[in-house]
């Protein structure tokens, strides 16, 4: 009992800090979402769930939510697949291993805004190298390609993080099951899918959650590359909420929308935890 008390005491400063930095803003946003607070009319009369209903009735918010769903599926799926491929490759005995590590980790080290600016030039329909190679295709200005292009830029950056996490996972796997599989005559392909992959699943699961949470919040790339356009082709929900707050000056409405997003992310995380504990 005494040990537990000391533990709590030691954790207290950290918990207090967390409560202050994360908890308070969350509570404040919850409070705001139940009022009609705007920057122009900071009166804050109680509205109940009115702002939540407003959000649900806003077709452009619903569109942004659906678009974000597609975007998250696309980016997370591709990131995990490519990350796994890279991790397996890096796990082999390659010459100049340090160089490969460096190359793979570089995108992760660049700030997303920097990534956006670099790719903006690469994709520039008149000056960019990619547009040149693809016959002057307008990747970001054409509503048909804009979302996919945005997702691929994002995947380019996120894959390095995924690859490094999965590589760490691969490194920490016990060797015995794999050796046993080879002794039993498994091909490398069989050994990977029947032994390595199942053992790696918990790491993949954690990565999945981290990536989903990161992608739901995608904002910087949209801001730099497309501003949500053309039309509403890349109007992801974080960017939409930002505009609601800072262009529409509607902090209560934006808070309600933010809570929808938070609930969706929490639900996904909870689902994963349940899966994990059951397994």
């Amino acid at each position: 009992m005494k040990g537990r008390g000391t533990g709590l005491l030691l954790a207290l400063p950290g918990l207090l800090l967390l409560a202050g930095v994360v908890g308070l803003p969350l509570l404040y946003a919850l409070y705001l979402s139940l009022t009609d607070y705007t920057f122009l009319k900071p009166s804050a009369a109680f509205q109940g769930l009115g702002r939540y209903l407003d959000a649900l009735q806003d077709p452009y918010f619903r569109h942004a939510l659906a678009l974000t769903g597609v975007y998250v599926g696309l980016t997370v799926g591709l990131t995990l697949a490519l990350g796994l491929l890279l991790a397996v490759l890096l796990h082999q005995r390659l010459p100049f291993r340090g160089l490969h590590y460096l190359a793979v980790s570089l995108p992760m080290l660049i700030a997303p805004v920097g990534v956006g600016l670099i790719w903006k030039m690469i994709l520039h329909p008149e000056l960019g190298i990619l547009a040149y190679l693809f016959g002057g295709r307008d990747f970001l200005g054409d509503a048909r390609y804009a979302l996919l292009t945005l997702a691929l830029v994002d995947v380019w950056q996120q894959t390095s993080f995924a690859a490094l996490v999965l590589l760490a996972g691969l490194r920490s796997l016990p060797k015995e099951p794999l050796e046993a599989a080879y002794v039993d005559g498994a091909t490398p392909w069989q050994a990977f899918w029947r032994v390595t992959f199942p053992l790696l699943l918990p790491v993949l699961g954690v990565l999945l959650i981290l990536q989903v949470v990161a992608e739901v919040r995608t904002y910087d790339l949209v801001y730099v590359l497309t501003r949500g356009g053309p039309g509403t082709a890349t109007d992801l929900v974080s960017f939409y909420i930002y505009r609601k707050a800072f262009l529409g000056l509607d902090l209560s409405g934006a808070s309600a929308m933010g809570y929808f997003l938070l609930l969706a992310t929490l639900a996904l995380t909870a689902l994963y935890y349940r899966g994990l504990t059951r397994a």
Partner: protein
Amino acid sequence: MKRLLAVLVLATGLSLAQGVVLRALMEDVPETRIIEELLPRFERETGIRVEFEKVQYAAMHDKLVAQLLAPQSAYDFLQVDFLWAGEFPAAGWLEPLEPYVKRSGFDLSPYYPSMLDLVGYYRGTLYMIPMYNYAMGLIYRKDLLSRKDLAEKYRARFKRPLALPKTLEEYVDLSLFMAKNAGVAGAAMQGQRGDPNFMEFSNYLFAAGGDYVDRNWRVTLASPQGEKALALYVRNIQQGAQKGALNANLDDTFRVMCQGRAFSMITYWWMLPQLDDPKQCPKVAGKVALSPVPGGAGVNGGWGWAIPKNSAQKEAAWRFISWVESKPIVRERALRGHAPTRKDAFQDPEVLKKYPYYKEAERIIAGAKKVPIFAYTAEMEDVVGREISLAAAGQKPVKQALQDAARGLEGLLKKAGLLR
């Protein structure tokens, strides 16, 4: 004894002013640097130091709002874009300036009425002093307009001589013609949704004789004129503009024009000296000219000086504003390339000698119209910009986009209490 007292008072005043530092958030553009060059003079004269925090335009609004909401602003005076000239006063964030003007005898008569209307008064109260004008006009390539082969082809096609267009239809026709025959884009267009495409489209709207609202704030956007304007805009961006126009902003269009890859652009008139600079744009310098938007009125734009209500140093801030807007300093700024808002600077012989195109600029400013300025102007740009972009991308028919934009605008005007 009297003299001693006067000296004492003066000395105390000076020493009080000593150590006063005024801070302001300014857009990171050449004009800000021009004012910055003159700041030591202000410090010598008053003992007040002025410090600018310079950021890109896109970062300004959020930073300002955060400061204006705080108990005390970190900025002692402000540079207010006309797009916020409704929002800031409506929110009660700005200090009314009439008492300051009266007390100091500041003369408002040299300012163009269109400028005072844009970045001076809000619903009858003076909150800002016009600082800078960026009305929009047409910049075009004189050399292409006088090319013989093009002139012949044009005459054969349109049965009229190749000349500066007089109407919006003529302009779009010419743009498409140039795109097809001159080996350049007909127009460098800034179709990125939000501020870029909203501002650009507004010129088409005004030139076609349309408007967003009438005098009583009733929405008139979805009129036949509005439809004509949007149809022409969509046609030009799809067939006449440079590649990537749907995602282009001001910088992109400038690059296209600067590299000689477009015939024209509807843009801020101060772009002309930038494009006419042989060091910056050797391919087009000497070949570009300015005119009002074909069809008449273009969009008026500008910045104003203001003092936030939560500034701790309002008197010193006013001292700076009245100094920087005084006749000699405005003239000095104009001679260094800072677009003025006062008639005396536009008509100054030395200024005109250095910048002959100020004559055209004055015409543009005098005829310019403003987009609706109210509490939700920034959101209006977002809502209307989205619909223009949807139409331009071919994702929504022109009529439908226009109706949706009008409905969105109406909602905002109701929210602002301007419409029932």
